[in-house]
């Protein structure tokens, strides 16, 4: 997995490529929580368009990012879900909990 970040206006976009699983979800969690709790970025946006697979530990990292954002009144947004990632969020009943958009333009325009 590779993860990098960009800053557009008051948003930080994390571009993730590869699978998110037990091997690397702690890294995702650490980056997200730092962006939310230390940098207090108003909008943290996860670009998952190049993530083919995400496991329950990856979902847990996203949930932690979401909860930390909500605790501080910030927004946490996902876009570009693969069929597998969408299925996992549906099966765990989390799809409606997250703010999810199809692409970056929608995510930033919301």
């Amino acid at each position: 997995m590779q993860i990098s970040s960009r800053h557009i206006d008051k948003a930080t976009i994390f571009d993730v490529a590869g699978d998110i699983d037990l091997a690397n979800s702690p890294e995702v969690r650490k980056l997200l929580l730092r962006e939310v709790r230390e940098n207090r970025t108003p909008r943290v946006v996860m670009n998952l368009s190049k993530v083919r697979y995400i496991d329950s530990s990856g979902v847990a990292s996203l949930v932690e990012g979401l909860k930390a954002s909500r605790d501080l009144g910030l927004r946490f947004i996902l876009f570009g879900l693969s069929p597998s990632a969408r299925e996992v969020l549906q099966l765990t009943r989390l799809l409606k909990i997250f703010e999810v958009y199809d692409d970056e333009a929608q995510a930033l325009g919301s």
Partner: protein
Amino acid sequence: MDRALQATRLTMGIAPPSRRRASKIGASTSKNGFLLKLELHSDPSLLSVVRGALERLTETLGFSASDSRSITRAVDEALTNVIRHCYCGRVDQPLEVYFSHLKPNSSVGSKGALEIVLCDHGPPVDPAKFQARSLDEVRPGGLGLHLIRQSMDEIAYQRVRGANRFRLIKYFMPSKQSSKT
């Protein structure tokens, strides 16, 4: 050679006698069509190797794309649970995964099924921990077992001769009612 591939052993086809004895823990595997055995260490970086093998195997067996994702997800989550909870994150512990084709019968339906048996040598698992948590509360953790149950037709756990044996079944056709334990 890639470290992940070096640490993974793959056996395909008919299991030789020694392998059959080794897989006695999953007795049903030798009575049916042995397909594949993976031996690996409990290193999370190897999970992607197992997923890759599963994607190709399920595709070869004719599962739909959706079923293929389900099976891959279930095995990945089960291995993740073993690594985290049975081996407490140690990366050098042995894991075996057996894949077999179950012939059609009254319990698995007219098309047969794919049987996957995960074996580890960690401490026994409390069967009470196989209850998935409620999804009403939004919080991280505890989702893996739920995903396994959602993805497979049958799941079962046994402690046999010092090993944990976690058995997952996916019917070739969803013609039978689930009997998840």
